[in-house]
């Protein structure tokens, strides 16, 4: 299945308002501590870093560790300065790289 991501921004927002961005990406977040049915350790495979950019400016970042649940979910705040494009990027082990964008409408 292709990598799925969900990115939620409010339908519209006022300038100066603080909104909440919610982002989920499909990923097993394999901890590196689990053992498979063959008795072998399952290799660590994580999303390591998630960033939020608004019109090219970084507005959020988080470093993730094995203790973050699979299909990692993040909610972060943003003060609205105008309409623009919000982009969330996910980077991780084994070359994992994914991004999703949503328009913020602040008339």
């Amino acid at each position, binding site marked *: 299945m292709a990598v799925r991501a969900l990115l939620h921004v409010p339908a519209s927002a006022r300038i100066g308002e*603080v909104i*909440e961005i919610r982002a989920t990406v499909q990923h097993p977040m394999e*901890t590196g*501590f*689990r*053992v498979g*049915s063959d008795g072998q*350790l399952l290799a660590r495979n994580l999303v390591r870093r998630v960033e939020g950019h*608004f019109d090219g*400016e970084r*507005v*959020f*970042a*988080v*470093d*993730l*560790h*094995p*203790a*973050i*649940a*699979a299909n*990692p*979910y*993040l*909610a*972060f*705040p*943003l*003060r609205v*300065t105008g309409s623009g494009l919000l982009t969330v990027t996910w980077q991780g082990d084994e070359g994992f790289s994914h991004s999703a964008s949503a328009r913020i409408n602040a008339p």
Partner: protein
Amino acid sequence: MTTRRIVLTAALGTLLAPAVRATPAALRSAIAAFTGGQLPRTGRVTLDIAPLIDNGNVVPVAIRVDSPMTAADHVQRIGLYTALNPLPEVAVFHLGPRSGVARVATRMRLATTQTLTALAVMNDGSVWQQQVDVIVTLAACIES
């Protein structure tokens, strides 16, 4: 009781093998790396988490910090740490004046009943924290 022992053993088997726990020293050193050595004061940070957890695999958690989030006075980063997971670090969130408020949420894994610590480093270098105790129960009737 036989049923309970089998279910408990199976649950731990799928999560960890063998049982791995971070040491208090590892937790202290992880927090020191996050704070830059500054001693945390309790306050301004609120760690929102249910006191009793259905399933340690997916635990919603939110952290709020009392801060105006202006250029002159804001939270630079929020760190979340566990005492008894295999590793002490959970996540480090990077915020700034563009955030507007200091409030983040995620979902984490909790290996067992334990104490969580949330810390915030401010732009003036000061560090604030809150600690919360959480009880984790096990799901019944699992895969293996």
